[in-house]
């Protein structure tokens, strides 16, 4: 192949790359565009991709009291889930990685296999457990359920990460007379920070958007989280598409921002496990 046609081929591929990614992002772009559209500017046919007079009015309307309640509920439930799931996950992953005997390996396989379990198929007994524990309409019901469903993936990601840490440092600490707990807190915990960050981001993304449990366990309006809350806004009298899209942008912003900042850790953490198991 000559240099010229090679370069032309590259340029063509680069254009294809930009074009396809733009196509994928078109719906997101449109969501932002409609969220900035003044209520007075009609939907034109054919649709205009960008409003003539962008405004933040829809965002001001979107901050209705219900939205604020749902937002606080989502933040509380998500942060609690991330903290508990990652802590318990790290303890378990550390034990599964550094200690080996028959019963423990069996427990590990059982816990890891649960990440494939379909919540939608087994929702009825889970709902009944929450009902008989008198936890319906509480943060606790959501946090407990979210920790249970995210733990298997958290352990799997953290284990893949811990397996790559050389055990020599821990061995040195043990020779120095540090007990297992000391070794864990002083050596393992600081070293596993990138793995912990990746896992925390994953658990946050999953929890922030969880819909099925929130829809089943929570019937009281004051306890709703954002996904159920916004689903309820659809078609509600007085809520325009502009406001709905503004609300969508507001719900997406926290996770998208965190993801963009921390994605280097995250993609590495996710694929270590996916490819090498």
């Amino acid at each position: 192949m000559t240099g010229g046609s090679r370069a032309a081929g590259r340029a063509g591929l680069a254009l294809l790359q930009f074009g396809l990614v733009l196509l994928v992002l078109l719906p997101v772009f449109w969501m932002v565009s409609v969220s900035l559209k003044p209520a007075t500017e009609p939907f034109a046919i054919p649709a205009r991709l960008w409003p003539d007079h962008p405004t933040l009015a829809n965002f001001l309307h979107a901050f209705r009291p219900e939205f604020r309640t749902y937002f606080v509920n989502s933040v509380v439930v998500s942060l609690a889930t991330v903290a508990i799931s990652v802590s318990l996950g790290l303890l378990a992953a550390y034990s599964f990685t550094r200690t080996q005997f028959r019963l423990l390996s069996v427990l590990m396989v059982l816990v890891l296999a649960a990440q494939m379990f379909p919540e939608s198929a087994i929702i009825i007994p889970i709902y009944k457990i929450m009902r008989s524990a008198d936890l319906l309409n509480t943060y606790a019901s959501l946090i407990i359920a979210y920790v249970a469903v995210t733990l298997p993936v958290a352990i799997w990601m953290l284990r893949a990460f811990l397996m790559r840490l050389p055990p020599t440092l821990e061995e040195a600490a043990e020779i120095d007379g540090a007990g297992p707990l000391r070794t864990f807190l002083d050596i393992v915990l600081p070293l596993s920070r990138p793995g912990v960050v990746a896992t925390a981001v994953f658990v946050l993304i999953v929890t922030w958007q969880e819909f099925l449990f929130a829809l089943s366990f929570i019937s009281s309006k004051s306890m709703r989280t954002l996904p159920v809350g916004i689903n309820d806004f659809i078609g509600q009298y007085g809520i325009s598409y502009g406001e709905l899209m503004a609300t969508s942008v507001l719900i997406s912003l926290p996770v998208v921002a965190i993801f963009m900042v921390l994605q280097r850790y995250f993609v590495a953490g996710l694929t270590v496990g996916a490819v090498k198991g």
Partner: protein
Amino acid sequence: MKRGRWLVFLFVSPAVILVGVLMYYPMIGTVIDSLYATSFIDPTPKFVGLSIYREILTSTDFGEVVRNSCIWTAGVVLLQNVVGFAFALLLNQRLPGRALMRSLVLLPWVLPGVVAAILWRFMFDPQLGLINSFLIRLHLSGQGIPWLAQTSTALLAAIVAAVWKGFPFSTVVYLAGLQHVDAEQIEAAIIDGAGRLRRLFDVVLPAMRELIALNVILTTILTFNYFDMIWVLTRGGPENATNIFPTRIFELAFGEFRFGEGATYGVFSILVLTLLLALYAAIRRGAERKSAGA
């Protein structure tokens, strides 16, 4: 090490107990619940043996749900993996802006599921939606197609939305897999004069066979049980046209308080899952044996 075992058990017990009670017990609980009938009027469970199974297997609803689930799962899994792989190939080239493109393409996957679903409801809107607006501009349609409101197109529309949301995950997995394809083999193929397509089919795809198989099974499990997208788009309608196992289970259990019927649909989902997990384990074992032998 025996000395420290109590500590190990202390460390793993919260995870084991939580997963046991809220993931394993409900698998058995679903089977038990499928033997008891409840209703909105009479919420006390009554043991009815296998009669709910008989009733469901002969109902037209069940046939429709099975048919929809098959089309939905096959469509989403196939497209998601093909599109995901194509993007992985493209983003694996050393092209300008690659790092930025790699993170931007993940955006649909990061977007909360309900937000993505609402966005696509809007995209498909007959009057205001972007898709119909393009069709009208190109004179392909006079007044817009009500994609989600007619039985002939609703499932197709839901598949498109789900593929958009899910393909970036496959891209990430395949991009990671591409890094492990033997560079020497590719060099050798280039020296032999193999073009891009030949290299793809003769070197890259065979090298990634197991990863592709595992990812296809994984996405099949996730798609078969994916509730959010269809629930927000159509709630299983119009006229059952998009009703799949997860939406039917939810509708029966929490819409009609027929826990027995919902659980019975759940048992069929668990059976499908068991088959897929067995397949997953077999492929995984085969791959491990091969890499151990090499």
